[in-house]
């Protein structure tokens, strides 16, 4: 409990760490989602191009 109180500075210290954790996690999430979207889109395009090539 003494450690969590941070000498009375807990209202400033812990929100800083919580926000840092959120920024780190959100950046990972956004980066992975954006990369996954690009991959799915490229995959769909490659498949439809292959289908069109097969028809012609």
């Amino acid at each position, binding site marked *: 409990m003494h450690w969590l109180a*941070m*000498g009375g500075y807990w209202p400033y210290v812990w929100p800083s*760490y919580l926000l840092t954790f959120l920024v780190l996690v959100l950046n990972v999430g956004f980066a992975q989602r954006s990369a996954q979207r690009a991959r799915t*889109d490229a995959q769909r395009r*490659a498949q439809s*191009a292959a289908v069109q090539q097969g028809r012609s």
Partner: protein
Amino acid sequence: MMDWTWFHRFGSPPHFYRIAGKMIPWFAWLAAISGVAGLIGGLGLAPPDYQQGEGYRIIYVHVPAAVLSTMAYATMATAAGVGLIWRMNVAHAVAASCAGIGASFTFLALVTGSLWGRPMWGTYWQWDPRLTSELVMLFLYLGYMGLRSAIDDTARADRASAVLALVGVINLPIIHYSVDWWNSLHQGHTLLKFGKPSMPPSMLVPLLLLMLGFMLYFAAIVLVRARGEVLRRERNARWIAELLGAPS
């Protein structure tokens, strides 16, 4: 004469995509190890500050965030410059990938700085040169992202945003030297000063570990984003079809 083959090979999207994919796990694991070690040191092992008590522990997230905010801008501007001069598509993809991450860490540096400032200075915000120039950098990031999203043509968006990124570089020395050039509430240089850093090793080592962890994390995330950006730009290329397993 210096061999620039490596540089031009990095400009090749398939090569960049492959190399980046191999580097990401290394950066991510090293960032995690360095970050956890720094966190244990900073929150558990480092002694309280003789003036600021336990409140100083905010610096273990504030300083790495602030350093990363300027490093991300320098990386973005360098990549944008390379893209502009050598017309390297991959470099523009890297520059575009830096912006969102840089903006989020600039925001983090400003908020954690405010949370530190309240108990230490008695205020959340002051129009202090260091704080104001950091805020200007947040607006530069937002301007860069806004400009990119406002232009539909990728090549034009690349060129226009690269010019903005390069103009904004003027703000980097202002941020760094603001504490020397003007009267500032913000403390002076602690780490990057001549002689030795004004922190004992028990406080300094966790800070350096967290800074390293943040930098490695940045490298990993930029590469994840840049790979996605390269896929988006090259979605009609033959190598993408081959890579994703579709017959070309």
